[in-house]
């Protein structure tokens, strides 16, 4: 029965554990379960404590019974001595004990009176047909000796033997009582004790299971909260936690904060270094182009060119590396495109931008606003560079294989690209126009960002005659929310 209880409990604790893990299988870094440890520990303790209790109670009960048996035997010895005194003859037929068990053969209850040499003088009816030899060993201070023996009928009996002198005649009075009766009582008692204590054990185990479950519930909540942070749904661990766990939540938040700070600081320093290098590079490059043609100028020019390319490359990389931290951000694409169009119009007064304004239900971009600006801005910049005065911007929502996507189209009426050129441009690091300084298509950063976000960039031919760039980016789930 106990085993069934344990089995039921192991099932229960494992369900507690899987409940805490959100049902997700995680093999790593698991070293046992608190709930299971609590259960097994309390179960082991309960078993030891309850068994000890059962043993102790039974032992006490059996001793009490034994003591009472000894007292009964004592009483019978006294009675026999009294009867002998009254009848003045140890062999008198009138010496009889009232207890009917002394009349029943093989009952375990016997009495015998012997003379000092051990010759039988008188005995109970129950002794007939058997031999009950006197005990060995010396009498104690009260002229008594006791023992536990087995009678010829395999009954365990307690023996009390006393040496007395009745009217100057030394006698040995022996009385026995059945121990098996007591043992039967003790067995009954033990059985009942185990049943009662077993029931107590089951209740305690259920209680400890419930307690473990209740006690561990905040840990489950904490895990959920941390998961939300990882998914980018929340910036810090939130919620009320009990006194024991609250410091853990605080520490996690502190860790998140300091982590963000460290990343931020490192990124800033890389940025500062790279940006700081740009001014001296500009100086070197300008100085060298003034003295154009000399060998020194040639070296300085080519080296400073390499250096500024390195600076650009690593700044781009640093930006992209910082991308991984932008989980959970979203940006209003309409807002961003309007702002960029405004900037481009100011920078290029000769160009008119036709902005096909989508309705406000257009989903937001799932990502960092600055990144969207970077991608769309570079596409717009290219369009401005190549266009003959006209640029078109339009946006639609699309349902792609990877869920809802945002399609941003930027087109111009410039010369456009042939299919081969378009393919070449989309390969990394290729610049179509190497003549004008800094006027390459600059799509590298766009392509890298598109990859990071799992979007796509396609170059096609526009109805305006020039290039049509199609930028597909993941849309935010809660599209349009928060737009007034």
């Amino acid at each position: 029965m106990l085993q069934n209880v344990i089995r039921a409990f192991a099932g229960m604790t494992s369900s507690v554990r899987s409940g805490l893990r959100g049902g997700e299988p995680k093999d790593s870094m698991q070293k046992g379960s608190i709930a299971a440890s609590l259960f097994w520990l309390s179960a082991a303790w309960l078993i030891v404590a309850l068994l000890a209790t059962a043993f102790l109670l039974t032992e006490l009960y059996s001793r009490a019974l034994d003591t009472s048996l000894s007292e009964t035997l004592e009483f019978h010895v006294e009675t026999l001595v009294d009867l002998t005194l009254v009848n003045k003859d140890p062999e008198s037929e009138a010496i009889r004990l009232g207890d009917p068990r002394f009349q029943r053969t093989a009952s375990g209850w016997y009495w015998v009176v012997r003379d000092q040499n051990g010759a039988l003088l008188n005995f109970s009816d129950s002794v007939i047909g058997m031999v009950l030899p006197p005990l060995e060993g010396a009498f104690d201070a009260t002229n008594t000796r006791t023992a536990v023996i087995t009678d010829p009928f395999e009954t365990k009996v307690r023996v009390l033997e006393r040496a007395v002198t009745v009217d100057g005649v030394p006698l040995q009075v022996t009385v026995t009582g059945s121990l098996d009766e007591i043992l039967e009582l003790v067995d009954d008692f033990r059985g009942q004790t185990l049943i009662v204590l077993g029931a107590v054990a089951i209740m305690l185990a259920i209680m400890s299971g419930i307690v473990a479950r209740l006690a561990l519930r905040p840990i489950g909540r904490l895990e959920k909260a941390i998961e939300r942070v990882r998914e980018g749904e929340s910036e810090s661990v939130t919620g009320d936690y009990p006194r024991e766990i609250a410091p853990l939540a605080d520490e996690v938040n502190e860790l998140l904060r300091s982590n963000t700070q460290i990343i931020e600081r490192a990124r800033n320093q890389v940025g500062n270094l790279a940006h700081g290098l740009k001014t001296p590079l500009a100086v070197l490059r300008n100085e060298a182009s003034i003295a154009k043609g000399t060998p020194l100028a040639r070296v300085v020019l080519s080296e400073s060119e390499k250096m500024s390319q390195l600076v650009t490359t690593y700044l781009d990389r640093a930006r992209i590396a910082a991308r991984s931290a932008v989980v959970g951000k979203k940006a209003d694409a309409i807002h961003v495109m309007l702002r960029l169009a405004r900037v481009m119009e100011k920078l290029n007064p000769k160009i008119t931008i036709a902005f096909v304004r989508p309705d406000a239900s257009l989903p937001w971009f799932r990502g960092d606003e600055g990144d969207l600006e970077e991608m769309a801005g570079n596409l717009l910049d290219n369009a401005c560079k190549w266009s003959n005065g006209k640029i078109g911007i339009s946006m639609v929502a699309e349902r792609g294989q990877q869920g809802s996507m945002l399609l941003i189209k930027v087109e111009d009426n410039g010369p456009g690209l042939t299919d081969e050129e378009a393919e070449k441009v989309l390969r990394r690091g290729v610049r179509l126009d190497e003549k004008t300084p800094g006027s390459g298509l600059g799509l590298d950063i766009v392509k890298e960002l598109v990859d990071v976000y799992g979007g796509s960039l396609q170059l096609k031919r526009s109805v305006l005659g020039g290039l049509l760039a199609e930028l597909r980016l993941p849309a935010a789930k809660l599209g349009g929310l928060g737009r007034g």
Partner: protein
Amino acid sequence: MRILVVEDDTNLNRQIKDALTEAGYAVDVAFDGEEGHFLGDTEPYDAVVLDIGLPHMDGLSVLEAWRRAGRTVPVLLLTARDRWSDKVQGIDAGADDYVAKPFHMEEILARIRALVRRAAGHSSNEITAGSVRLDVKAGKVTVDGHAVKLTSHELRLLSYLMHHKGKVISRTELTEHLYDQDFDRDSNTIEVFVGRLRKKLPEECIQTVRGLGYQIIED
């Protein structure tokens, strides 16, 4: 045309100043934000080259302060930060154009030329008045297709008048826009240069408006 260059790197400042001077502009320089702000607030510049990262007062604050005070001078921002969000920020602060470091000096010259032209309302690099034609980019003047050799001071004077053709320009304004602040200003020199220009160009090109100044008639 008078340009203000605000850049804290002394070498870069000198290079930009030299390049602009060589291109025929009068150039003033400032090495920090406060000095730059003061000059731009008090002197009539035709364009400003403004670095964003400046000591004492950063470029964007300088720019915003000018715009708040109603100064519409075209501003070309110089910056090491070339993210689009930086560009948007700069344009929103009131900049007219934007050059990212490290740049080629030709780029600065081209952008300044375009800004000055745009501010004066011209859309091409060539300005004509009658038979006189000024190529702003090359700094060449032709009359009826024949090249005319001008000294740099003569070219500056003609260029300013051509950019503002149709308007009467006072001698003071000319002095303010043709010479940097360290120049010993004597408005008589303007008369000398106008005289020399009249000899090299058709007589009727530059008109004197008595008591007010000079004017190139719009055709």
